[in-house]
C-alpha cells in the first residue's frame, strides 16, 4: 500500500507536568529513532495525539523547535480524550502524528516589534512564540505580551510571565476578568489594556484565544493603524484527520488544519465577522 498518512507512530511520555487544576503538559518522544531524527516543526504547528481505544485530538506543540526530539504538548482536560490522556504517566506510550498546519510567521517577524495577544485558556499556541523570541531575543524588536484570563488561578506559567516582565525591551500586560488578593495586575478585559501600550508602525501581531476577544482586539489594532496583513490569528475548529480531507475545519475555501491554523487577518477577514463558519 502507498504511505498511509492517517497512521500514528508510537511516542513515550518522558515527563508529565501539572500546570494548573485542569492543564497539564506532556513531554513526548517518538520511540522510533528514525522518526525522531526526521521530525521537525515550527512554532504554531500541531500534532494529533492518540489515546489507545479512545481517540485522537489536535494539540499544538509548545516546546522550542531547536530540539524536535522532545515535544511538549500543553493540554486542558475538556473531553473524553483529553481526560483520558490526563491520567497517563511518564513511561506510558501514546500515538502521535504530525506536525500539521502552517505555524506563526517567525521569518516575517524577524527584526520587527512583536505584540502577542492571548485570552482565556487558549494561550498554549502563542506561548511557543514567546518562548521562541525569549530564546532569540536579539533577532526581534520590542516584545509586548497581552494575556487575559478569566480567573487568577487560570494563569499558567506565572513564573515565566514574572521572568519575562523583567526582560529588557519587553512589556507584559496581564488581565483577569475577576481579581483576587494574589492578582497584582489589571482586573477586566484584555482590550482595556490597549491604551497602556505604545505600538510602533513596524509591529507584527500574533493572537490566539476566543474569537470574540480576537474580534474586539482586531478592531482596536486597526484603529491604531496596524495593517490587516500584519495581524496573525491562530484559528480553532473541529479537526479529525489533520490532512485537509475530512472537511470538519472547512473555513470558506480553507481547511484550518492544513491552510491554517495560523492565518493573517486579511486572508480570513471576509468570513471572520460572521459567526457560523
Amino acid at each position, binding site marked *: *500500500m502507498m504511505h498511509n498518512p492517517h497512521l500514528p507512530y508510537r511516542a513515550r511520555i518522558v515527563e508529565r507536568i501539572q500546570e494548573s487544576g485542569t492543564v497539564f503538559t506532556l513531554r513526548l518522544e517518538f520511540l522510533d529513532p528514525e522518526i525522531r531524527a526526521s521530525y521537525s516543526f515550527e512554532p504554531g504547528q500541531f500534532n494529533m495525539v492518540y489515546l489507545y481505544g*479512545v481517540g485522537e485530538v489536535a494539540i499544538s506543540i509548545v516546546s522550542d523547535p531547536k530540539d524536535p526530539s522532545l515535544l511538549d504538548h500543553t493540554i486542558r482536560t475538556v473531553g473524553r480524550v483529553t481526560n483520558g490522556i490526563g491520567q497517563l504517566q511518564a513511561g506510558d*506510550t501514546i500515538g502521535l502524528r504530525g506536525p500539521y498546519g502552517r505555524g506563526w510567521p517567525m521569518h516575517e517577524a524577524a527584526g520587527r516589534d512583536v505584540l502577542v495577544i492571548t485570552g482565556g485558556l487558549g494561550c498554549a499556541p502563542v506561548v511557543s512564540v514567546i518562548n521562541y523570541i525569549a530564546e532569540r531575543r536579539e533577532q526581534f524588536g520590542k516584545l509586548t505580551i497581552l494575556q487575559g484570563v478569566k480567573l487568577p488561578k487560570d494563569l499558567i506559567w506565572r513564573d515565566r510571565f514574572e521572568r519575562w516582565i523583567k526582560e529588557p525591551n519587553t512589556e507584559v500586560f496581564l488581565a483577569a476578568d475577576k481579581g483576587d488578593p494574589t492578582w497584582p495586575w489589571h482586573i477586566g478585559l484584555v482590550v482595556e489594556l490597549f491604551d497602556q501600550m505604545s505600538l510602533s508602525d513596524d509591529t507584527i501581531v500574533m493572537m490566539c484565544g476566543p474569537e470574540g476577544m480576537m474580534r474586539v482586539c482586531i478592531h482596536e489594532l486597526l484603529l491604531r493603524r496596524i495593517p490587516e496583513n500584519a495581524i496573525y490569528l491562530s484559528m480553532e475548529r473541529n479537526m479529525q484527520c489533520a490532512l485537509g480531507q*475530512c472537511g470538519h475545519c472547512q473555513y470558506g475555501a480553507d481547511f484550518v488544519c492544513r491552510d491554517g491554523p495560523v492565518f493573517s487577518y486579511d486572508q480570513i477577514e471576509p468570513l471572520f465577522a460572521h459567526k457560523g463558519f
Partner: protein
Amino acid sequence: MTRPLSPQFLPREQLQQFIDTLTDAGHLVYGPQLRDDAIIYAPFKTIAKLPQGIEDHHTPGSYRLNNNGSQRWFDWVSSAQGLKPLLFKPRETLWRATRDATGTVHFKSPENRVEKIAVIGARACDLAALKLQDQHFLSVEHTPDPFYAARRRNLFIIAINCTRAAATCFCVSTGDGPKCDATNNRHAFDIAMTELDNGFIITSGSTQGRQMIEQLTLNSADETQLDQADQREANATLQQRAIPSQNMRDSLFNALDHPQWDEIASRCLSCGNCTAVCPSCFCYSEQTEPTLDGTSSEQLREWDSCFTQGHSYMHGITVRHDTKLRYRQWLTHKFAGWHDQYGRSGCTGCGRCITWCPAGIDIIAELAILNSDNGETDDA
C-alpha cells in the same frame, strides 16, 4: 491515448457478451438494479438483473419509477447514488491499534485488498463529480489518500449518455453534461455508450476502453444509427432547471446575511440527505472502536455531513448550532468557497439533493433568490 476508435455498434443481443468480457478480464461488474423502488448500483453477472424499460421521475422531494414498456435498460436518468460509494467508502478502517500482553501498542495499516471493479451506467454529471472527488482525495501537492487511490486505479468506467432529462436535472447549466466527452479530460471514462432500440453506439475514452471494444469485434456504426443517437441524446439537453450562474462566489459571499437563509432554515430538517446523495460531498468523521476485550482498537472513517451537530463541535462549542448556519455552510462551500479551493463550483447538476430532500427544498429556487440580491431591503 491512441487514435480514437470510430463509433462502433453493439447489438443488444451482444450486451451479455460484453458483460462476460468484463468479468473474464477480472472485473467485478457493477450495474443499475432495482432495489426498494430505486435504481442503485450493485454487482451482477447476467443482464436479466438490469432494469428494463424503467423510467425515473423526479420532483423536489419525490422519486417515482414507472415501466414504459421499452426493452431499453438505461431509460432511467439518475441512480440514488453516483460513483462516490465505490471509491470513497461510506465506512472503512484507516488503521488498527493492538495492545499486546506487555501493554505495548502497535499501529498497523489495514490490508488493502482492492477488487477490480467495472461499473456500467455512469452519467456525465457523475463523471464530472468523480473528477472533483479525485481533486480532493488525490491532490499530489497535499497527501493523496491511499484507500481512494487504490480503488480509483482499479475502476473501469462504462458511461451511458443520457437520452432523457429528469425534472431535477441541470447539468447543461453547470457545463457538465449531458454528453460524456473525453476530449481535454473533460470526463474520465473508459467506454461511453448511447442506447438505441436495437443496441448501443459504443466509443472509447481510454486505451483500456479501446482494447476492450476491439475484443468485441463489432462493426462501425452507420449514419442512421449515429443520427438516432444524436436525436436521443438531444432529448437530454431539454432541462427544466438551470443554475443562475456558473460562478456565484462573490454573490453568495455577499449574501451571508440574506433573510432567505432563515426562510430555508424554517423548512430544512438538517437531516443530511442532500450531502449523502451529493456526488462531490467529501466530509467524513473518524470513529475509534475498541474491541470488548481491549486487545485492539480500530480507527474508522464514516461519511459525515455538515448538517450534523457534531460536525462543527469543538471542546464545548458548536460553531454551527442551528440549521440556518449549517445550510449556509453547505451552500456557500459548494457554490462559492469551492471556486477558490478547486477552481470551479462543487455542483455538477445531478439534482439528487432536490429529489432526496424530504422537505422538497429546491436549491435552484434558493440560489435564484440568494444570487439576485444580497438581501438588503431598499429604503427608497
